[in-house]
């Protein structure tokens, strides 16, 4: 009975879909996403020019492409966010099987674009990286399995989803794409954590990882050198990292000014992995802090909204998607300021990339759908917090 009472989106009689959507959508997060995309376009004017020049295209070619794909992404996002969670779950699980199959078929049908890792399908006018699409639907699948495990007589969803995780991560590592594999593991762990992972397992895993790290540091010279190099305060100024740090410093608080930046001409990945360095150089610390604040706002707001969610599936899926988005952003930013060891990862919505934009649109669409306002028996919360049971 309780499920029926508060599980569904409140329908005012005769209300239109769009009006209901506008009333219940998280307008803060939606606004932040629009701002992020706008910032991405603005930075694209700066960062993608050298790439266009290298490829013999007109200077703003990639900006127009980004705008086109961004438009598509927003259509996808809005479309998905208007669905019911029920529908999203159904489509997500179906989509999972398609995306998983696409990832698994990569070794046969994929192409590596001469970059040494088979991650893409070439569609002629664009390329698609199926792992980008796999991540969000995998999270939906995981959340569904874990939520069902909490139901009476439910299946052992946690074990099944763990098995699925192992398979997916194995295929991602085969490409090889350790960045996506790591993100998938992080997001799955977050879902498991919120789904009620026992403290014993959590401490055990943390201890094991810590011990393994110490062991590797003491026994593997290669590993130790990587860590020492990362920890040492000196950066070789001729590495990507050195240039990125240099650019951030050059920009100072207010930046060198539009199109005055140099780093985008040096770094091959200025329009993707190191776009924050371009932002810092041309627009200064203010722009960087703005971007960082937007990401922090989106992740914190989504997670807090999910706190009051009664439905286990929505809670878990929302958590996983938020963590996916936030940790990808965090890793991208952390690498550029040398908080984390070098690992290529795009900045969601800001970095250039067609299929990644659409995948992000799908991800945020699901997230917006899950964070829509639903009645959550707030009265009960008030009573509980006052000690009535």
């Amino acid at each position, binding site marked *: 009975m309780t499920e029926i009472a508060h599980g569904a989106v409140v329908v005012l009689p005769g209300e239109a879909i769009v009006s209901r959507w506008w009333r219940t959508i998280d307008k803060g997060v939606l606004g932040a996403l629009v701002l992020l995309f706008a910032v991405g376009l603005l930075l694209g004017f700066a960062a993608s020019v050298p790439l266009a020049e290298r490829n013999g295209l007109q200077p703003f070619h990639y900006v127009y492409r980004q705008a086109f794909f961004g438009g598509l992404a927003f259509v996808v996002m809005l479309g998905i966010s208007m669905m019911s969670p029920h529908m999203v779950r*159904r489509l997500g699980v179906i989509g999972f099987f398609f995306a998983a199959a696409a990832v698994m078929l990569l070794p046969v049908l994929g192409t590596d674009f001469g970059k040494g890792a088979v991650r893409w399908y070439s569609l002629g006018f664009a390329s698609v990286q199926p792992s980008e699409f796999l991540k969000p639907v995998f999270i939906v699948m995981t959340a569904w399995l874990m939520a069902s495990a909490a139901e009476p007589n439910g299946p052992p969803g946690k074990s099944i989803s763990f098995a699925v995780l192992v398979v997916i991560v194995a295929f991602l590592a085969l490409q090889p794409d350790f960045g996506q594999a790591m993100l998938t593991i992080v997001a799955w762990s977050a879902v498991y954590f919120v789904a009620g992972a026992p403290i014993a397992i959590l401490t055990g895993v943390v201890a094991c990882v810590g011990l393994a790290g110490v062991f590797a540091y003491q026994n593997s010279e290669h590993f130790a050198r990587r860590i020492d190099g990362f920890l040492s305060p000196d950066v070789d100024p001729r590495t990507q990292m050195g240039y990125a740090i240099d650019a951030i410093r050059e920009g100072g*608080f207010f930046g060198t000014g539009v199109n005055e930046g140099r780093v985008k001409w040096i770094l091959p990945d200025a329009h993707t992995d190191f776009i924050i360095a371009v932002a810092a150089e041309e627009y200064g610390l203010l722009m960087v802090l703005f971007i960082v604040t937007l990401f922090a706002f989106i992740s*914190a707001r989504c997670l807090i909204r999910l706190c009051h969610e009664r439905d286990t599936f929505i809670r878990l899926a929302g958590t996983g998607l938020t963590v996916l988005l936030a*940790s990808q952003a965090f890793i991208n*930013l952390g690498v550029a300021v*040398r908080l984390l060891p070098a690992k290529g990862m795009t900045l969601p919505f800001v970095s250039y990339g067609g299929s990644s934009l659409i995948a992000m649109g799908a991800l945020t669409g699901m997230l917006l759908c899950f964070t829509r306002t639903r009645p959550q028996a707030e009265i009960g919360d008030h009573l509980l917090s006052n000690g009535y049971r």
Partner: protein
Amino acid sequence: MIFRRKPKPVATDPFQPVTPRVPRPRDPVAVAPPRENPEKMRLRAERRLKFTAACFVFGFAVVGLKMGAISASEAREPRTGGLAGAGIVSARADITDREGRVLATNVTATALYAQPHLMVDPVAAAEGLARIFPDMKVDTWTRRFTSGSKFYWLKGNISPEQQQAVHDLGEPGLLFGQREMRVYPNGPLASHVLGGARYGAQDVRAAEIKGVAGVEAVFNDYLSDPAREGAPLRLSVDLSVQTAVERVLASGMGLMNAKGAAAILMDAKTGEIVSLASLPDFDPNDRPAPATEGDPGDSPLFNRAVQGVYELGSTFKIFAAAQSLELGLTNAGTMIDTQGPMRQGRHRIRDFHDYGPRLSVTDVIVKSSNVGTARMALDIGAARQKAFLESLGFFAPTPVELTEAPGARPIVPTRWPEISTMTISYGHGLSASPLHLATAYASLLNGGTRVTPTLLARDDAVEPGARVVSPRVSAEARHMLRQVVTRGTASLMEVEGYQVGGKTGTADKPSPTGGYYDDKTITTFAGIFPAQDPEYVIVVSLDEPSIFAAGEERRTAGWTAVPVASEIVRRVAPLLGLRPDFDPRADSFGAYLTQAAASR
């Protein structure tokens, strides 16, 4: 059913068929297992969600702060990343010996670097550089100069002639940086004391010099402290004495076919190290890379005098004898049973020669009887022996000002059974560095007060340290050691006019596979001069010496370490300003007692 748009039931979960499951009769307990209270679960999830949110907010805040820190930092050329803050201090004080003679100093040097974006003609620049510096390849540097990079170091130190030649190229993109270069004008002399230096942080205006080992590393901050205005660091080492010691030690090591040698000359009263040598050595101007294979103990970088811990053999016997006297268990003339072999469990202790059934304490030392020493040690007992050796500094690393010293912890047995008491009394089963031995000899024999070894010159009078033995016992021990030279195992040690006293020690080298080699020894001589009122302690140690002398292959200290030590004393005693004393009365026991009374 969680989300319901129509009243019609929809099967959303493939694991739960719509048709109710009928429990099979033989499985009557297939009901829903107890699940957690959903409200409890939700509260836990809420806590964990808040935790996750806090983690992300914290993470993004750290990213923002780091960004701010980088933005606020000063750009420098070359931009060496996170090195923010104060400028580089390139000044570094000299290091001198005790007389003020220079052991380490700086000279001005010039570094060459390139800024390709300032270049008029990068190709011509690369060709010109290749003419001046034959090791620079035209192709490589042409490619680098045209790659769009803005900065390259070309050469660390170039000569004035080379600098002029680069000037003459007339290329504005080739620039010179000023820096200081650490120079050790005496080459390998005292290399293990000085250690060496390298460049730390560097930019085009200056380069920081950092000590990597020895006193350069220990006093790194002190030497580069601008507040001291370049006042030199004065060591206790004496350059001329160090030269003599190293020369004699090197030729002695060759003569005795040893693979390594170490020598220490220490002021017996103050603990100042006048000379410290370890062979093989190296040139600190061109410090070799640490050995990656083989025994690190055989590397030229290894300081045998400080880092090497060895079983030092019979040089330890004087500690047992002195303690026995100090405790009043014996006096110098007490007869000790030396009938061997002595059995202890399954161990047997025997002497090099059979010295007959009984020897006086003095003769136990003079003839170096293991059995006699072990008997004295048994009377002393493990606890008192341990405490005595600890008071002499054998349980801790030496506090000398070298980076290597804290790592050289003596190897002492964890349990201390009677057999350990016996073997340690004659220097087996406890490993210590030659510096430990020199410190202990100085403490025991200077009148009985503990000294602290140091490499810094001490100008002010040194307060005597804690008392180890009484002046009387110290004098008796000195007299015994003197007799070891006049009529015992160190007879080759006699240096006319400088009454040397001391003790030999020959220890079989432990083999890495367990047990001991029977053809590899470490021979040590530890002594004092002049014996009646010691000014200096000398320790000489040879690794795997062997010499064919008097008709047979000799590996004992009396034939190897002693002649080397005696030659060192013969050379350095005049340099140290000691007056030779040829008066035969100087050797009488009365002279020792007078000294003991004076130091009381």
